[in-house]
């Protein structure tokens, strides 16, 4: 296993909605074991990119290869197997509202593995503890949880099958700064302990500083730049300059260093 194994490989991706082209000839690699942050202005198609990779959005052209298999060429069964190797955290958790938190986490066990009830309970409780939720939240319904807790519960469900890849769509959006910082730490800790590859779509500069190994910038319909935070700071691209060295960026940088 080489150091730089591309676990997700996107080539020549094109996404078009009516006359509006969102992505044009977009290339992207995500390497095993890294945290890749995707940034870009509103409407540059960050979430569309995530949806194209996981197959929720059929790209107009181009190929997406995940774990060596091409998404668009897969049969139903093969796809189901592949889907079990990634976990996705949607923006607001996307928990099933009719089920309790514990039942939500158990959905993949029940659907795909048919584990014994006792073991399912233990594993669900373990996952819920791992994401830092208190024990009494197991029997709560999503509507009874705060936004931050819903995201943690969504993360527990995404981690249920011990995936290789974790997709996060704006994990800190809508959280207060304390909750967001705690969530950043949680993501980083889990990534290290479980050896996850994390694909993270975000707006949050603090998250980029705190969690990402590499950053990919979406602008002009493709990945304009990918590299480390230092590469970003050195870039001459007007949008990247504005984004990474604007007033808010300086504050985030100061807090990351301090």
């Amino acid at each position, binding site marked *: 296993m080489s150091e730089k194994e591309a676990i997700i490989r996107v080539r020549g991706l094109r996404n078009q909605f009516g006359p509006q082209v969102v992505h044009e000839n977009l290339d992207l690699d995500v390497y095993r074991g890294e945290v890749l942050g995707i940034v870009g202005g509103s409407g540059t198609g960050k979430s569309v990119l995530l949806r194209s990779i996981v197959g929720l959005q059929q790209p107009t052209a181009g190929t997406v290869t995940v774990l060596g298999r091409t998404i668009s060429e897969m049969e139903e069964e093969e796809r189901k197997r592949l889907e079990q190797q990634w976990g996705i955290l949607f923006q607001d958790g996307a928990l099933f509202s009719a089920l309790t938190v514990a039942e939500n986490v158990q959905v993949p066990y029940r659907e795909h593995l048919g584990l014994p009830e006792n073991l399912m*309970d233990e*594993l669900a409780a373990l996952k819920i*503890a*791992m994401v830092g939720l208190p*024990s009494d939240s197991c029997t709560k319904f999503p*509507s009874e949880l705060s936004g931050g807790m819903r995201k943690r519960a969504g993360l527990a469900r995404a*981690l249920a099958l011990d995936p290789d890849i974790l997709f996060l769509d704006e994990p800190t959006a809508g959280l207060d700064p304390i909750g967001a910082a705690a969530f950043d730490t949680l993501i980083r800790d889990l990534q290290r302990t479980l050896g996850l590859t994390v694909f993270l779509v975000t707006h949050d500069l603090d998250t980029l500083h705190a969690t990402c190994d590499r950053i990919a910038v979406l602008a002009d319909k493709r990945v304009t730049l990918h590299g480390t935070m230092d590469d970003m700071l050195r870039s001459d691209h007007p949008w990247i300059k504005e984004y990474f060295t604007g007033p808010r960026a300086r504050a985030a940088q100061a807090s990351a260093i301090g």
Partner: protein
Amino acid sequence: MNGTTTATLETEEAEVGFLVRAKGAWTVRLVRDLDGPLREISPKRARGRDAVIDVTGLTRLDTAGAWLIHRTSEQLRVAGLRVSYRGETPEIRTLLEVAEGYKFGFNLRLPRPPAYLQLAERVGAAVVSVSNEVRGVLGFFGLLLGVLWRTVKHPSRLRVVPLVHHMERAGLDALPIVCLMTFLIGAVLAQQGAVQLQKFGAEVFTVNMVAITFLREIGILLTAIIVAGRSGSAFTAEIGSMKMREEVDAMRTLGLDPMDMLVVPRVLALIIMLPLLTFIADIMGLLGGALMVWQMLDTSPGVFIVRLSEAANFWTFGVGIFKAPFMALVIAMIGCYCGLRVTGSAESVGVQTTRSVVQSIFMVIVLDALFAVFFTAMGI
């Protein structure tokens, strides 16, 4: 291949003590069949006081596997054995620490009360919610009357543009469906009536039957039910989604009364349009009936009109039309009331829309029954 696609377990009594050997890939996909055997490992089989969990043979481990190993070691420890691991790598250690961080005693099951208590609870909750609903609707009715009266006193408060807009949406746009339905029902009524009345040789009275039932009851009832399903639900959904997006609150903070802006135009639009729709429904129903008797009984349109004027007087028609504004008031009021009851979530819009349609159709039929009693008492 063996190492990555299977998870196996061996236990034996060795010189180091009771030995539990984990081999293969202990991952969530493969450990299902290990759960039972691991629970059944009996510490009684250990001769000494030592137990060793050998993880040297593991090719892969994830949190589920780590949990099983940790659980087994706890199980042996509780039975009084000294447990140690053999062959731990740093990766395995990290995962075991994750499992060790979890405390027992999580309660995952919702407490379920016995069936009779659940039954009693549901009955009680239903009674309370119905009584709240009735009180709420009556309160809203009072509020609405007050606002309508205020509008009558100060006609300048009336928003004309929304009024016309809703008249078009709830009235004009409903015409095709109302015409089609009433025409078909009129025809079916005539056809069924004719078949039955022929048995008594009384088929000439088919026209009387169609005219009276349609003008007095079916025309208005059918129109009201279509409008309740079409416009009542639309009122709830429109106002509900505005409520959800806090538009209603924004109106209040800008000094605009949602009753004036949202409710009054809708209620007045329906009060104006429902009688007109009913009038057209009556005509279409009679047309359907006339066509059917012409075709079945050879009663020409001319004869139909003569028999119609003998069978029905102004009040046969007037009774139906008279009911329309009242039903319109009830439908629009319930639609708006349910819309304003929407709380933050999208589900709530769905729940309230369903409730609005069910309640307004129910109220339309109740009102119709009350009117039937009233008109009979009045001798009309």
